[in-house]
């Protein structure tokens, strides 16, 4: 059988699509099986068990961020439901993050443009 989704490390709670897959595809990976709910691209991360908001996503056997929403078995994991524990992710079209508040001792600019 052709491999569709790869579990890179036995501790991983997501698998990776090794080719573009269509909605309805029956996927068997990491000791579980599910029908894909949507079309996904090559490289997409798919939950190998139901995951809860606040849980770490594990890939390569290491945490890659924290979920901001529940994800069902086979659900698609990406920027809409996963956040970095280190640095914010920026994507084209998204607004740049608001500047961080000045730290203690930092001087504000002398001139601020009118709104």
């Amino acid at each position, binding site marked *: 059988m052709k491999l569709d989704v790869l579990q*890179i490390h036995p501790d991983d709670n997501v698998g*990776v699509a090794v080719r573009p897959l269509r909605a309805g595809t029956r996927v068997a990976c990491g000791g579980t099986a599910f029908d894909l709910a949507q079309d996904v691209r*090559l490289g997409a991360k798919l939950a190998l068990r139901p995951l809860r908001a606040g849980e770490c996503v594990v*890939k390569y056997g*290491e945490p*890659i961020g924290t979920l901001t929403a529940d994800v069902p078995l086979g659900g698609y994991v990406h920027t809409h439901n996963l956040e*970095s*524990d280190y*640095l*914010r992710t920026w994507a084209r079209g998204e607004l740049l993050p608001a500047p961080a508040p000045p730290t203690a001792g930092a001087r504000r600019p002398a001139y601020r443009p009118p709104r």
Partner: protein
Amino acid sequence: MTDLTGYPRSDGRKGIRNVVAVAYLVECAHHVAREITVPFGDRAVHLVGFPGCYPNAYAHRILEAVCTHPNVGAVLLVSLGCESFARGRLAQAIAASGRPVETLVIQERGGTRATVAEGRSWVASVLPALESAERVPMGIDELVVGTICGGSDATSGLTANPAIGLAFDRLAAEGAACIFEETGELIGCEAMLARRSVTRELAAEVVACVEKARRWYDAMGHGSFASGNAEGELTTQEEKSLGAYAKSGSGPLHGLIKPGDVPPRGGLYLLDVVPDGEVKWGFPNIVDNAEIGELIACGSHVILFATGRGSVVGSAISPVVKVCGNPETYARLADDMDVNAGAVLSGTVDLAAVGEQIHRLTLEVAAGAKTRSEDLGHREFILTYKSFEPIGPACLPVR
């Protein structure tokens, strides 16, 4: 097996190319320098330089390291005249290395036309000797190989990066110095790197340098993460990092170096590319070629470049081998790619075989074979403002 040969240099290193470097010392001299290189077409006359008018110790160190790189056989410096770059000191260092060097100051030579004509005739006078120079036997243990990933996507960490890691493990075991870099793309991997460090003191240095990278990118408000990474199904910095980390292979980490430091012997080295001190002058690496330039300044003869989205760049001075991790990208950009690591995903080849192909190709390129980016005329080079403190003694444990 490839029999390596190289061009011997006075510092004991050997080059795998014999390039005339034409270096502009300020952006105002860039056009004149480029015009000097134009008539030489695909002969080995490469343009490098630094755009800024204000002096910078890092930029001086990198440009000197590039101009005295083993792949460089002669250097033409092109100065406007009023910029701050210490051109005399640079010319002396190049001359002391035994390389032919000439400095043309545009304001003294009579402007654009006169300087271009003089520059072209100087290059034409040194090039034939470089092209006919004898190569001498060279060992793998004299080779320095750098690696970088750019235009990464979710395939990079599955195919291209781990395949380069396998090639790195083998090259390092054979005595080559192997350098990986971009500490901002090791955020989340510091514990694993610490475990692979040959001493506890080195491990502490590695953890501190990744923490420095995190602080720096935090201040910038932007990680080492581009829009295309997310379109390529990478979600977070640490996910991208874990894929990038795979380039380093699985062997012990022998040292932590900074731009311009040449590894003292074979083994695996991490290049810290994030500046020291307060955050200034912007992003640590504005683009992949800034890092490639730093790998070359550390003596890299060949660069192994892993890409998923499909970078097409090469570099001045040292050849760049492109390892494509994504089979869809390979299908679109095959002409730009040296290795189709994405074939692993279709199951037609295994990762070990791709690792062996990269190892073999590295030695073939070192022996003189042209890479795709060399053949296509890619010779990118970029150098910007930065500042670094020297590395501490714990960074290069004595073996």
